[in-house]
């Protein structure tokens, strides 16, 4: 499989990365080079092999169902959460207007 300009433009849009025509053009052979190389995986016989989900046997844990079960990840830190936001407003993250 190989990608063309239209596909790269679509991927860039899915990835939310603005790209000029020239950048898209330059990215086409770069991606094709890499994709062509990873395609050798197709020759591996994987009959009956399950895709690997985790490298160490480890059951996922659930935390206690209560606010501030761990104060470091719990609530009550709105100001800290917003401290690095480029445009916080009234205790919320500010974004450009979405609905006319």
């Amino acid at each position, binding site marked *: *499989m190989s990608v063309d300009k239209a596909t790269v433009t679509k991927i860039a849009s899915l990835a939310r990365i*603005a790209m000029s025509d020239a950048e898209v053009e330059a990215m086409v052979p770069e991606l094709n080079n890499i994709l062509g190389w990873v395609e050798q995986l197709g020759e591996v016989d*994987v009959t009956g092999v399950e895709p690997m*989900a985790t490298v*160490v046997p480890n059951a996922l844990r659930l935390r206690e169902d209560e606010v501030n079960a761990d104060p470091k990840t719990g609530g009550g830190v709105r100001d800290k959460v917003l401290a690095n*936001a480029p445009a916080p407003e009234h205790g919320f993250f500010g974004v450009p*207007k979405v609905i006319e």
Partner: protein
Amino acid sequence: MTEHTEMGVAQIRDGVANGDFTAVEVAEAFNAAVAAASDLNAFIVTTPDSALDAARNVDARRAKGQDIGKMGGVPIGMKDLFATDGTPTTAASHILEGFVPPYESTVSAKLWDAGAGMLGKLNLDQFAMGSSNETSAFGNVVNPWRAKGSDAPLAPGGSSGGSSAAVAARLCPAATGTDTGGSIRQPAAFTGITGIKPTYGRCSRWGVVAFASSLDQPGPMARDTRDCAIMLEAMAGFDPKDSTSLDAPVPEWEAGLNPDLSGKRVGIPREYRMDGMDADVAKSWDDGIAWLKDAGATIVDISLPHTKYALPAYYIIAPAEASSNLARYDGVRYGLRDLPDGAGLQDMYAATRAAGFGKEVKRRIMIGTYVLSAGFYDAYYTQAQKVRQLIADDFAKAWESCDVILAPTCPSAAFPLGDKVSDPLSMYLNDVFAVPASLAGLPAMSVPAGLNRDGLPLGLQIIGKGFDEQGVLNAGLAIEQRAGFTAKPDTWWKA
């Protein structure tokens, strides 16, 4: 007395504990070394006051007769991928410029609790994506080593290139690294130092800027095996805030160090001996085999048949996870926001990410987005995850006949900066020996083995069974004692 900056972790910790010198003296010496080495560009931010404050605390504790901790009085460098409370954290990307974490990563917090101090935040490949430290938005790190008769700047390896350069140049006795597909071991090999990636899950990923979460693993980089064992003890341990953290006690790796390998079997994977292998790399591998035999081990030939597929599988899995992890950089919650006039939300996302991410990061997000997109997911991502299982199975089978595996860390010594930037594939191939252990989540370390024909360091890699960091460290120590690696780079960067 030895100059403070010539000392390693154990020597500093013991010297401070014994009262031979103070932690403040040590911090001052390393702060001065850092300040005089700006030509290496190893640090993004220096924090001399932080190092001094920690040292004063340790000296005060000692004066009161209190325990000074496993890393008491040892100033270290912190890879700028670890969130540090109140100190900017960038992942070497413009998209995180101005980000000051209001929290501390688990690993760095553990190090400070153990008595370590912070000299500064170390440069790296942007979002840890790279093998030469040339993708940083803050400029290349320069390897302190130079080839004989040349002053061409060499790559310090990557992604932990600031860490490797700083330890090799004696700007810090040890530094944190992170390893996703070789990012601790390859830079350690390129700079003649020691670094270990522990079993996946040993060190918490909480507060480490995420690249590929199923692979990312913090680890120590230092001058020798003992120092790595000490620092790994301080970094490791269960963390309820990381869902993949290992809920297991931390072994006493330093106390358990034993270079006698009698009864141990060392596997030599035949697939790693590739056609056209660099003669000096091949020789250092043979040296390593002889040294481990001398330490009492039996050498066995093993096969890891899917080795050649590890790198292509990695370059599907890691970008796939990265494209998902890096979706959080959207110009809304932290970091850069680029809002063109009259732009809506979607345009703001796209403009912010275009302005904030570097070229290699964009390339990997694009690959990841493509292999996860509708219609291609099974052909690429699912296939890669199946091949990943086969690679892990190869290792499981190998452990039936050996206890550790010995291989080169990299196919070559450090290469000149600029040599591979225009060819991503040739850059990726640098990690050909490092990636298989990452995909299988196994502990693996690099120890210096000697110098090549150009006077540049080469590393040997030891891969161990899951949870057997001790076996890896012991084999590393056996090599270290026989390699007698004492070479140091000339200090050309000191003005």
